[in-house]
């Protein structure tokens, strides 16, 4: 993954219905730089603006404000057919009156390539997605998963600088989905093309991406690699959206360089190394992943204690839901390594230990 920027989004806003009183801010001053050859994912709930941003890059809509640069050149003034960017649509949008091969060759024909070049590239693409045997079939004669691969091949055939994928796996069943996730990753590596992938499934995002941008309500909240997003969520929404989180409200007691002393109430203090610029007396929220908390041993110092409300066995893990005297129960996730099924009685006293390094301080 190189360090050159493929797509540079600069202060882009998109407002629908600007003239009427029904204004919708689909994108609000969004800026992000997508690097060459990376698998970049836009992740967020529906309505967060991720698809709008994708459509702006493709050229199907124009930004209300801001610029979009492709390899340094402004493209937001160009129509879609003049941008070296191709899209895999959510419902594939395959041409029903053409065969598989004709669909794949369409972009090449539009680029006025020679007939021989078209044929050889189409064959290459068919092999790439392993659809060679079905090349003369009509679109309504192939399955959903096969259509998806044709859509992919069609978008890759013209060798675009960037490939945009709009929730392409959402119509597939789980097993097929998992297969395609691996497949897409492989394709991205093989072709070296920059992929911009849109999804609302955080597991999918974390599995496939080099970097993820988490979006909500038209804004980008955090951009980073999978483990950064997961372990160091920048705000409450990101922490909540990705995986499960325990949220604890607390107060800053004092601060020395980057070490915050945090008051958890009931006389417990914790020292956290954080970049967050918090003042003494300020209220903050702490985020702790369930699997980074432990049931404390008898000789260990515990950060919190409470009573066990529920003990849920999920095959790979056991979830302990503990009442620590706050609004929401605290969840501890323990992996069930064989022979170590820690049986606890409901209502029994539980002590929870957390490594301070695993505690994330969030903007409130």
């Amino acid at each position, binding site marked *: 993954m190189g360090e050159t920027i493929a797509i540079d989004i600069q202060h882009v806003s998109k407002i629908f219905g600007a003239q009427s009183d029904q204004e919708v801010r689909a994108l609000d001053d969004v800026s992000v730089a997508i690097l060459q050859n990376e698998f970049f994912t836009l992740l967020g709930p529906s309505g967060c603006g991720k698809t709008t941003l994708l459509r702006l890059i*493709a*050229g*199907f809509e124009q930004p209300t404000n801001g610029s979009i640069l492709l390899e340094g050149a402004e493209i937001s003034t160009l*129509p*879609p*057919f*003049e941008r070296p*960017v*191709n*899209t895999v*649509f959510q*419902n594939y*949008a*395959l*041409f*029903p*009156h053409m065969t598989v091969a004709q669909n794949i060759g*369409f*972009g090449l024909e*539009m*680029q006025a390539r020679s007939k021989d070049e078209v044929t050889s590239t189409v064959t290459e693409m068919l092999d790439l997605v392993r659809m060679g045997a079905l090349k003369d079939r009509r679109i309504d004669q192939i399955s959903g998963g096969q259509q998806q691969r044709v859509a992919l091949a*069609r*978008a890759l055939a*013209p060798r675009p600088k960037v490939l945009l994928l709009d929730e392409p796996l959402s119509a597939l069943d789980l097993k097929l989905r998992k297969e395609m996730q691996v497949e897409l990753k492989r394709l991205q590596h093989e072709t070296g093309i920059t992929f911009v992938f849109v999804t609302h499934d955080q597991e999918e995002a974390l599995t496939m991406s080099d970097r993820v941008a988490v979006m909500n309500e038209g804004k980008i909240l955090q951009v980073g690699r999978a483990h950064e997003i997961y372990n160091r969520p920048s705000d409450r929404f990101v922490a909540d959206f990705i995986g499960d989180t325990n949220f604890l409200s607390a107060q800053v007691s004092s601060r020395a360089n980057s070490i915050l002393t945090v008051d958890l109430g009931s006389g417990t203090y914790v020292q956290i190394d954080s970049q967050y610029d918090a003042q003494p007396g300020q209220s903050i929220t702490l985020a702790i992943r369930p699997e980074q908390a432990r049931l404390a041993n008898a000789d260990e110092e515990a950060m919190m204690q409470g009573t066990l409300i529920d003990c849920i066995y999920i095959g790979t893990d056991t979830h302990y839901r503990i009442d620590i005297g706050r609004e929401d129960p605290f969840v501890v996730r323990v992996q069930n390594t064989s022979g170590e099924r820690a049986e606890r009685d409901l209502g029994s006293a539980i002590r929870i230990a957390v490594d301070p390094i695993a505690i994330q301080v969030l903007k409130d």
Partner: protein
Amino acid sequence: MVIRRGAFVIKRMPGFTLVALACFFALYMPLAPLVVYSFNEGNNIALWEGLSLRWYREAWDNELVQSAAIRSLVVATVASVIATVLATMVALGTTRTRPYRGQTTIYALVNQPLIVPEIVTAVALLILFAMIKQATDYHGYAYLISAHTAFCIPFAYLPIRARLEGMDRVLETAAADLYATPWQAFKRVTLPLLLPGIFAGAMLAFVISLDDVVITEFVKSAGQDTLPTYMLGQLRRTITPEINAISTVLLTVSVIMVTLIFFLSRKKAK
């Protein structure tokens, strides 16, 4: 097991089936003697004198019928072709687009021939063409063709628009994404998929033009008959089975056209 006798069938309304079947019968029954007597050897509708194609032959040889038939076909073909092209363009300009000022005016103008009674349009055109005839002394086909094209446009427009509305814009978006200019996207994606609608529109326009009586009657110059106006003239003078013969031929053409249109719309629905 379904108990039939005396069962309460939800959808049954007493008498309705009877009326409906009577209606269908009544719709087709008058056409039967019309067709049958076209094959009558004799002149009298009451007297069956034997099976023959006499009247078809007479109609075929009748010079007036010949010129009327040719005129009908020429006008219908030219008018329906022009009307279909124009209607396709209007459909593309008014469907699947963001609302714009004047759109409703365009609808109103396009659909106007459907709402205004034919005789009103016929009179208006008579007046206009009379003025033009006086000024230019032109007595040719252009009057008929322009009049027919105008009222054929809404008939071609409706099926084309219906077909267009059922087409998802995402296909054109995909084509643009794949480097197709708007014209290329139209030629390679929109047009092929629109073709059944265009074809249905063209045939509808053709039948409408072929069948038109009122406007043609008012707009034509003396001696310039189409088949329907010729028949109308004959009805005022002597009625011979020649009219039956011509009617039967026109009827057959209509039936074939409607059958084709029906099959086309079935195919698209699959």
